[in-house]
């Protein structure tokens, strides 16, 4: 089926548009609540109980409990709001970015040091497919170990779902 929204053709990317903002309002406001120390403490003490304070869907609550980062994006979370959640977990932007790409921390850090994920091969979904891995590194850095295909495939499926 043809994509009517041209942004949907950009692979591995979720646009925080009006629809996602409406869908994710309470999920994001839950994340925002973690800006306060007392809320962080309450959340850590009883995550599932704390989530009941916010009128989110069961699927959104599950995704929070599982820390399913790509799933959360698909359910309307915005990355800057998710930052409140992963900061509560003591994780950095780079740590969570690596998890979202299905890479190990070392692989992701090495990719960034080698100039980042190249644009060529990463402009359109037509350049990605289930068999091929998204071009993750510059040619110079390709001699390392293979990235975990299964985990990445899973991440992609979730993202597409």
């Amino acid at each position: 089926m043809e994509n009517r929204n041209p942004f949907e053709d950009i692979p591995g990317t979720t646009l925080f548009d009006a629809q996602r903002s409406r869908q994710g309002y309470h999920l994001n406001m839950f994340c925002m609540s973690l800006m306060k120390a007392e809320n962080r403490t309450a959340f850590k003490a009883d995550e599932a109980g704390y989530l009941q304070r916010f009128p989110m869907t069961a699927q959104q609550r599950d995704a929070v409990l599982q820390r399913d980062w790509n799933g959360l994006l698909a359910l309307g979370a915005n990355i800057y709001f998710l930052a409140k959640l992963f900061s509560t977990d003591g994780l950095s932007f780079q740590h969570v970015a690596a998890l979202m790409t299905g890479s190990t921390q070392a692989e992701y850090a090495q990719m960034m040091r080698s100039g980042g994920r190249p644009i060529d091969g990463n402009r359109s979904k037509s350049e990605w497919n289930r068999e091929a891995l998204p071009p993750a590194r510059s040619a110079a850095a390709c001699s390392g170990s293979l990235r975990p295909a299964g985990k990445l495939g899973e991440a992609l499926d979730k993202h597409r779902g």
Partner: protein
Amino acid sequence: MARIVAGVATSHVPAIGAAIDLGKTGEEYWQPLFRGYEPAKQWIAQAKPDVIILVYNDHASAFSLELIPTFALGCAAQFAPADEGWGPRPVPVVQGHPELAWHIAQAVILDEFDLTIVNNMAVDHGLTVPLSLMFGQPRQWPCPVIPLAVNVVQYPPPTGNRCYNLGKAIRRAVESFDQDLKVVVFGTGGMSHQLQGPRAGLINRQFDTRFLDNLTADPQQLARIPHLEYVREAGSEGIELVMWLVMRGALDEKVREVYRFYHVPASNTAVGHIILENE
């Protein structure tokens, strides 16, 4: 008469702030980045602006989803560093310039740019990291700062062209202010980066280089870049570059590039920095 003498653009990566605050600037990972800002520090020490207008975006710190102003101008006397979830950065409270800020708000609203006026706003790394990069770690920031927060979190941000034209309106407003002030405008954020999803880590050096080149060569062309192109070519968070165009619009048509620095990576991001002077 107040006048805008120069523009500064720089990325505002939070990890840079953390590196400064935690004393890591001498580490092998960070050294090349901070070395790249040394000439900029010298430049601004000589330029000695009386006021900085700093264009940045809030990252769900002062504004949540309850209120999403497209352009919000800080008119308060001071702005406290925001607690972004791990305590506020240990940097000085930002002193505003209410007189000029209110003058700009009134002038640009009557010039048909309907800004939101803000009297109480914490400022996050988007504003404080550029100050740290340019001024280091002083006890007080050397001059007042007028924050201009642009929404780039909720799609759609304002267009590049709107930002460029707002810059022009701000210039007209500054030039109608009846005090002899030297103003420097900062445009912050970018350059190419994507923080989310399986494509996270995207960097597009070619796009960034062309963007830096066209700030002097063809800013009108930059003002025509559509959102789709930013997101596809520069990453979902690379769209922050529209904020650089407010700075560019506030300068003369012809400007001189006095300094440029580009470095990959700072965490997930391509760091770009440029200083432009009116001729």
